[in-house]
């Protein structure tokens, strides 16, 4: 039972910390910083299932986030759906789409797969920029009136924040549950050696399609929340390839294949970026700093932060995942 494991309670503690910290003294400044951290953690935990477990490099994972944003925002603004229904519908629609895409491109392996995910993201972006019902390249602007059912913008931003923290928690639990399951073992086997896994009876095509679709669901909902909060959505923001690659960086930084790593990496990366951006000395060099950091990890510590922690304190392995 998952509830008995100590790591589940660590996840619960992280979520509780995210929920409580900004509420103390109504610290909205902290909340705004944690919003982005929660988005990064959600994206990184989900990409980790396909990248870290199954060993497939998805450069275009942001397509789920963007499409989810578009579905939800469009349902709310053009069809007056309530937030919750629009979010769930967005998540389901994007997962279904991912299944269709996945059945096509998951026949590819290695670099071929990685390149095709870029193609999917760019193709979808170019399509949406021409797609009239979603406003084409102008995108969709939301009226502040849409915040009213949640009690006005001030309260709505709190509601959005708690929902995002919830999605982040679900992402961590999902990532953990998958890793502990037979399904997860199958994915890890695929990551080690796909042909051998198939020989051992792992239904590789089905598993890959499921994990691809599964890793789309929560990012799509997070996208809905994020763009509802921004009050507008446009193709270049929704399908930002840079955010997509950053997600991979974050997962690597923390340690791919572990559950806690991507979350740790996402949190540290976001706080570092936030600090670099507002620091007068480094604001022009934040890309350089991010690049040097990443290069150092890839070359000298491919296990990421979790790899380093495990090496320093091997006993951590007994309760961290």
């Amino acid at each position, binding site marked *: 039972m998952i509830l008995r494991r100590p790591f589940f309670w660590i996840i619960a503690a992280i979520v509780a910390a995210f929920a409580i910290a900004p509420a103390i003294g109504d610290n909205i400044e902290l909340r705004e910083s944690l919003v982005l951290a929660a988005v990064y953690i959600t994206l990184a935990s989900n990409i980790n299932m396909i990248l870290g477990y199954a060993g497939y490099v998805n450069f275009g994972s942001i397509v789920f986030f963007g499409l989810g944003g578009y579905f939800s925002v469009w349902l709310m603004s053009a069809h007056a759906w309530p937030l919750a229904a629009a979010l769930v519908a967005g998540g389901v629609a994007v997962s279904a789409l991912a299944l269709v895409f996945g059945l*096509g491109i998951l026949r590819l392996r290695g670099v071929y797969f*990685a390149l*095709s995910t870029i193609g999917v993201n760019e*193709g979808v972006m170019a399509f949406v920029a021409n797609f009239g019902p979603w406003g084409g390249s102008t995108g969709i602007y939301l009226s502040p009136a849409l915040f009213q059912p949640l009690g006005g913008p001030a309260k709505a931003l709190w509601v959005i924040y708690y929902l995002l923290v919830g999605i982040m928690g679900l992402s961590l639990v999902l990532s953990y549950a998958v890793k502990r399951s037979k399904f997860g073992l199958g994915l890890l086997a695929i990551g080690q050696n796909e042909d051998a896994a198939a020989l051992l009876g792992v239904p590789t095509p089905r598993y890959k399609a499921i994990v691809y679709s599964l890793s789309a669901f929560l990012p799509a909902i997070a996208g809905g929340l994020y763009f509802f909060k921004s009050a507008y959505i446009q193709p270049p923001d929704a399908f930002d390839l840079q955010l997509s690659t950053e997600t991979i960086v974050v997962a690597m930084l923390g340690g791919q294949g572990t559950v806690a790593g991507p979350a740790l990496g996402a949190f540290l990366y976001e706080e570092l970026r936030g600090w670099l951006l507002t620091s007068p000395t480094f604001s022009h060099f934040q890309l350089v700093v991010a*690049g040097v950091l*990443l290069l150092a990890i890839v070359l000298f510590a491919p296990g990421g932060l979790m790899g380093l922690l495990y090496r320093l304190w091997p006993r951590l392995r007994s309760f961290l995942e």
Partner: protein
Amino acid sequence: MLGLLASILDGVLIGAVYGLAAMGITLIWGVMDVVNLTHGAMIVAGMFAAYVLVGAAGVPVYATLPIVLAGGFLVGVGLYWLSVHRVIGQPPLMSLLSTFAVNLVLVGLGTAVWGTDLFNVPASLPGFSLGRYTFPGTHLMAALLTGVIALALYFFLYRTRLGKAVRAVSNNREAAELVGIPTARVLALAFGLGVALASVAGMLIATMFPFTVLSGDAYQLKSFVVTVLGGLGNPTGALVAGIALGLVEGLTTPFVPVSWTLVIEFILFVVVLITVPGGLLTLFRRRRPA
């Protein structure tokens, strides 16, 4: 009718230059299974090298070509030892990330120095007219030089000892090592060549279009599309695919709104990846009796 012809011819001229850039990616991939994500940054480096050489040092525009070629090669060799050598033979993710990291650093430094302003290399050559349509001399020259460089590369790979060593490593690294080829040095050489091709393509593009530090992304994506159409690891395929893509663009623009070209291109890209991952040229090869 004349318009269509002009459009196709223009597409072919510029497609050849995109093909040249793609040859850089594909050469590196073929030899060491690494997708070079510094490609876009090196294209931009070639552009700015041309800009600085012409603007500050007064070098004639086309005389910058050998300088950019040599400089690109040296930078490429340096980049190999810095970021690629340690991840050779590891899962593809590692080299993707290490080259991506270098790309971040280069783009970051570029924006710190030049900002995101626009730059233009003043280049003008007499063009050639077909009715009301004009083919600028710079486009003709770029396509011509692309042909020369492609031929030189072909000669190098197939006619020289060093080139043969590169191809041997590309075919089978272990076997090449067994017969005494210093693989690491050959890999560095190939990486240098790939980067040199990217930066020369950048220099040629700079003679045709203005650019910014961030122009690299668009050209890098284009190079990926061309590389995949031509088949990863196949330099001839890349050149042919570049020209073919230019042809397709030239054929479609007169009839389809331009904003849809990208959609068509990326659909083509994904479909080719899934159905003929070896590139379009394999379609022709399969027809031969086995």
